[in-house]
């Protein structure tokens, strides 16, 4: 088992190396260098440009650049941001991590409680009217562009009815010495619309995953046996069937963990949520290549971590996996 874990870890590290290589190449497919693109928009004298080139190491041969890039990444140095010069990309990402985790975490919590419950509910009523309509509803949610839904919700609940704030994570006019409860309520009020947007568009996949997984289990003999032994429907549903339908959900959770960190570029940008997604949107406007690259790198690292965690979860849950 330890050997399996180590092998899996080595695989993830190797994949991350490939990611680093790909992202480095991606930056270099363009003609010229990243700074040439910056100069299109700003007035920079040739002297300044060559100084900047030296600062970003762009005057060195490409092999050496790759070496430095890899060295930097391995020590957590993702370079210097252009739009927020001279801030480090890693520092910027770090300061924006909290809000993204808060927003993403709330959405995940909803998806993995409400979504799971709805999926189980549907599986038990397979083919019924409830099942059909919930499937249609979730498929519709899945087809809605998040940025549009966010705008519509802002128009209705913020601009028209003035119920909820439309931007930011906290009220800038709220004094720092306000009571904790007031601050908490303020935060929750700011959370509602972004969370609602993201949940509406992503709840569908949790429901569908859970429904399919549950259907696989419900047809098995041991479920009928459990019911025949006189267990209550709740016991059969959650203790017997659902526990065995957890596996695919664990995989889904692994796929969604990255979302915790990188958040949603669209929704964070619209709500001015001070997270990493909004940072990426700012990087687009400022043509900030290093920042965008650093964000992509972070995202990839978390994707791999999520997969790894899901695998470890499977290992812990299922003795059959442990045996191999």
């Amino acid at each position, binding site marked *: 088992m330890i050997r399996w874990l180590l092998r899996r870890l080595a695989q993830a590290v190797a994949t991350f190396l490939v990611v680093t290589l790909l*992202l480095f190449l991606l930056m270099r497919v363009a003609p010229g260098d990243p700074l040439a693109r910056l100069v299109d928009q700003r007035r920079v004298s040739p002297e300044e440009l060559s100084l900047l080139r030296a600062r970003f190491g762009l005057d060195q041969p490409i092999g050496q650049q790759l070496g430095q890039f890899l060295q930097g990444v391995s020590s957590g140095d993702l370079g210097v941001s252009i739009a927020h010069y001279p801030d480090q990309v890693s520092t910027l990402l770090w300061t924006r991590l909290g809000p993204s985790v808060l927003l993403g975490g709330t959405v995940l919590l909803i998806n993995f409680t409400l979504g799971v419950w709805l999926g189980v509910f549907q599986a038990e009523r397979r083919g019924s009217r409830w099942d059909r309509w919930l499937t249609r509803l979730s498929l519709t949610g899945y087809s809605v562009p998040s940025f549009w839904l966010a*705008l519509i919700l802002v128009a209705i609940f913020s601009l028209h009815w003035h119920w909820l704030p439309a931007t930011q994570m906290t009220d800038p006019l709220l004094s720092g010495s306000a009571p904790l409860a007031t601050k908490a309520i303020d935060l929750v009020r700011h959370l509602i619309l972004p969370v609602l947007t993201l949940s509406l568009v992503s709840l569908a996949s949790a429901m569908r995953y859970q429904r399919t997984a549950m259907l696989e289990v419900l047809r098995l003999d041991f479920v009928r046996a459990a019911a025949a032994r006189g267990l209550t429907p709740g016991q059969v549903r959650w203790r017997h069937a659902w526990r065995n339908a957890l596996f695919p959900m664990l995989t889904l959770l692994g796929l969604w963990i990255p979302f915790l960190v990188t958040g949603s570029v*669209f929704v964070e940008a619209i709500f001015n949520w001070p997270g990493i997604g909004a940072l990426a949107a700012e990087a*687009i406007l400022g043509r900030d290549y290093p920042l965008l690259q650093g964000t992509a790198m972070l995202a990839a690292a978390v994707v791999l971590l999520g997969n790894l965690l899901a695998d470890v979860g499977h290992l812990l849950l299922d003795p059959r996996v442990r045996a191999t």
Partner: protein
Amino acid sequence: MTGSIWSALQRAWRDPGGRVGIVVLVGLVLAALLGPFGLPDPLAAPNPIAGAQPPGPDHLLGTDPLSRDVFARLVTGARISLTVAGLAVLLAVTIGAAVGILAGYLGGIVDSVLMRLVDGAMAIPRLFILLLLTLVWERIPLAAFILVIGLTGWFGTSRLVRGEVLRLRSAEFVQAAGALGASSARVMLRHLFPNATGPILVAATLGVGEVILLEAGLSFLGVGVQPPTPSWGGMILDARSVLMTAPWAAVFPGLAIVMTVLAVNLIGDALQSGFDPRSA
């Protein structure tokens, strides 16, 4: 192969949801083809003074903040969206199938190298790869935009096809073809590819929905389809500043996206349950 696509479509037609999807999608394609005839010019000279006018007899769905007809722009936008999605997915599926068949059939070092690259590429969220690529251009040309979306969409398909090929490689009819002296290329194209069309078709259909959403999102961020070419995402971006005074300019393009993506997803769903009835 055309035969299997046809029978898949028939199966999708028998599913009520799939039928709705097909009808809507065919309607959209027709509208996109016939589109601009008889409608006001979607690229009419912007007239910011007249501003956004509400829906009425002159303008069925109103006009945008630059006083251009929303309905005409929606229809032209449909043409752009469907073209981008269709071509990009075609490109992605072709590359994905080719890579998958090569990796699965040849195995060995080719397989290892290709699949390690795919592992790496799949770990980076597609949106970020696309953002990095589209930012290379000051204003990305439409052809380059399609190319970029297509080139970032094949990783999953290649994995899927490779799996199918591995499953089929040891099947007797493939062995027999090899034993009868068929070349590797012939085995791949005539025997392996046609048998993997099912999963490819499902992946392609769902891919179209994904690409329409991506295209709209990137256009909304200003790095996709460039103005003045109408695109649904771009229309929402234009309408953002007049959300309260001219809601129609933002609402209708969004509804168009939802309708199109939903239609495509309904078809994909019907196809999938046709191939794998257990999940229905």
